[in-house]
């Protein structure tokens, strides 16, 4: 008796259950119940990944197509694709031009990560230890502006800065050193690559810099260690994982750099990426370009894996 009166009272209360929004929500709820009935639990857990896997799958298909093309002979005069063969890889690997380009790229991919991490470690430490918020903001902006303004704006800025009649020229000629003529040399390309590597290095290093235990450093100081010893034997070992990961990321970035050699190198200092493009498009041999692409992919993957493995091996031995 009592419960019926309550439910009758509820019926009289104003309700928003018939509002369009709730109608939509009710519809979605019944759709979900229906979906839960027809789809097994395991499938339901993986299905939201489907769009992302499709997206990446399109790249996998592209890479497979590239690999398939690289395994064919090609007549660049008639522009006709021939049968299956490994001639493209043989031709690329015995091409002296490719040797020069690969050597140059590997050299820069070894030097620039070391420079970038060398700057990145103090940068990340300052970023985490500074107390004023505006300093931290300035450092964050400094690291992200080159990354986010994109290759073109970044390299244009560097062109203006180190190009003929730029500020660097002005400073050096006023000091009496003469103009440095950086454009078109590996120095200019290196500066550009380090600039794009720094944000990556800092972002990768930050988690391990934040995990540094300040007590350990203080303990070593109490035991009479000099600041240099503390840095080399206490701080750096704690950063090892971060440094190895940062080196790997920077290596991959340097190997893949395209805009810096093209713009700051003035086309005189081609890297593997530029070489690939000129072979594929300008010289009109798509299978050879494809072979260079697959080689580049393999070199980057192997190099990154090697750096990570070496870092892990060193750590195990030192324990």
């Amino acid at each position: 008796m009592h419960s019926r009166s309550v439910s009758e009272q509820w019926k009289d209360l104003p309700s928003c259950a018939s509002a369009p929004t709730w109608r939509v929500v009710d519809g979605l709820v019944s759709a979900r119940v229906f979906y839960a009935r027809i789809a097994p639990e395991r499938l339901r857990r993986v299905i939201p990944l489907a769009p992302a896997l499709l997206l990446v799958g399109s790249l996998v298909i592209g890479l497979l197509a590239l690999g398939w093309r690289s395994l064919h002979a090609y007549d660049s005069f008639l522009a006709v694709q021939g049968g299956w063969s490994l001639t493209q890889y043989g031709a690329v690997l015995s091409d002296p031009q490719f040797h020069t380009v690969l050597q140059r790229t590997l050299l820069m991919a070894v030097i620039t990560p070391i420079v970038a991490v060398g700057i990145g470690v103090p940068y990340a430490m300052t970023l985490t230890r500074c107390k004023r918020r505006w300093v931290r903001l300035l450092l964050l902006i400094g690291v992200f502006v080159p990354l986010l303004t994109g290759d073109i704006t970044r390299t244009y800025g560097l062109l203006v800065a180190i190009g003929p009649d730029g500020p660097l020229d002005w400073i050096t000629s006023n000091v009496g050193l003469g103009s440095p003529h950086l454009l078109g040399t590996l120095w200019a390309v290196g500066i550009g690559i380090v600039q794009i590597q720094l944000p990556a290095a800092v972002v990768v290093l930050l988690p391990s810099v934040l995990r540094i235990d300040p007590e350990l450093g203080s303990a070593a100081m109490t035991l009479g260690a000099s600041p240099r010893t503390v840095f080399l034997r206490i701080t750096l070992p704690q950063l090892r994982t971060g440094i190895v990961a940062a080196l790997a990321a920077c290596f991959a970035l340097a190997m893949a750099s395209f805009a810096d050699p093209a713009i700051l190198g003035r086309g005189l200092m081609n890297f593997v990426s530029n070489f690939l493009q000129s072979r594929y498009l300008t010289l009109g041999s798509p299978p050879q370009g494809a072979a260079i692409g697959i080689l580049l992919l393999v070199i980057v993957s192997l190099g990154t894996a090697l750096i990570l493995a070496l870092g892990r091996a060193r750590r195990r031995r030192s324990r």
Partner: protein
Amino acid sequence: MRRLRLAGLVTGCALVPLLVPTVLVLTASLSEGEVLTFPARGFTIHWYSAMIGNDAIWSALGNSLYVASVSVAINVLCGVPAALVLPNVGRYSGALFTVVLSLGLSSPTIVSAFAYFDVYSRIGIGKNLTAVALAIAVTSFPFMLWTVLAAMEDLDSDVLPAAATMGADPVEQFFFVRLPLLAPGIVTGALVVFVLSITDFVVSQVLTTVDDQTLPVYIYSGLRGAISPALGAVSALFIVVVALAFAAVLRLGKVERFLFRT
């Protein structure tokens, strides 16, 4: 103490090459003369008025905006559902999926660009900006995924059970509890992807032609000759877009939380 001062010194020196070129772009765009010199001669807004009157720039900007918007849409549609379930698929398969889904970043950009070029030329898609946007979306996808995953980590794990006890259906839990809490992370990811896509150069210079080029490719075609201040005005446009996006992201407060997570 001495060590910290040394670190500060290195950082200060690093800031100069990081920030000065960007500032120079802005000053260069205001200087007179056909070729850039330093110190700048005179002050003019001629290059900006020339830019506004140039139809090629406007159509290139339109192409860039279209590509970036499509790329953001693809990233949100694929990234948010993936990030929602990734923490629940188990540790090993979760790590495996994360590695697979980051392929767009781990594969060299130029190789990805030519991979799409190869496929598009095989199936006969030429001059299609949506196809260009798909290729760019793949290369920027990891940034979207990581940002939303970081936002998921911040989520209080008791909130969803609390909603469930009060009778919320999973659908309602998603729309009224999870989505509002994840919104700052999703917006941050979308802004980062937008900026990365609108400034993309490597992929679009392979996949576009003179007729449908994006703004970075347009600027590049002018970079090969003498360095003209006219390009500074166009580049300044990018800096403004990036500055706005950066200000929005900092306001959401997610970047600092993401970077300084322990």
